[in-house]
């Protein structure tokens, strides 16, 4: 690998790492959102019987 290749490898690792971390946070946000809907549904179903 040339020195230019090493340089691009270094920058690519950081940029890809940052993008993957942001993507992971977005997917966790979606999971939390889905769980909230599930909880609302459960609480809504439980409500009238109590």
């Amino acid at each position: 690998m040339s020195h230019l290749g090493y340089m691009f490898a270094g920058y690519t690792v950081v940029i890809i790492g940052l993008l993957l971390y942001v993507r992971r946070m977005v997917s966790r946000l979606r999971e939390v959102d889905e769980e909230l809907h599930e909880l609302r549904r459960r609480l809504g179903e439980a409500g009238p019987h109590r």
Partner: protein
Amino acid sequence: MRGMEWFGALASAALVAVLYVALLVAPEAVGEGAVQRILYIHAPSAFAAYGCIFVAAGASAVYLWKRSPAADRLAASAAEVGVLMCTFVLVTGSIWGRARWNAWWTPDPRLTLMLILWAIYVSYVLLRAFGGDDEEIAPYAAVVAIAGVLAIPAIRVSSRLMRGIHPSVIAPRDGGTGLADPYMRLALWGGAVAMLLVAAWLVTVRTRLERVEREVRAVRRAADAAEGVV
């Protein structure tokens, strides 16, 4: 969330601007080759890592003192982003070392202490992820975060007291001049500001996500209890 989006856009724009200066504007250091430009992402990642870890340790101390859940959430988030930044430091340093020293790793005191810092904070993140209930694990995690931060002054002291081969560009030893060109300094210090902004944005978003996740877990426990689920 509008403020968060603006903050994220500002941090991203700063990073793109600095990448432009680092890759296309700053002149190549004589005799170093293109790989020298890794410095402009390696050192800023180190500043961001130190910043995150200081925040994690400070917030952990506040948690131990006041038992503030907000401080605990901040510590957990800053530690996670700190691990990410430490990983960037180690990987970019390793790539630079392969190009310059023909070795991915060398047992230099500064490199070894950085690896120890990374390992301590990885153990912190694993403890938070798999240690069990947030409230039970928080005091132990706080102690790990505070103990781990001591590696940062050790890294600084080791670079002054122990003979290593890690280059000292920012505080040149042995009569070195550091970065002579103003665009090189702009790439380095602008990069530091940009990476600190990116890290601050990630910590802020992660802290909010942590708060919502904990609230959802608490509601789920309450719902399970109400339905008689063990």
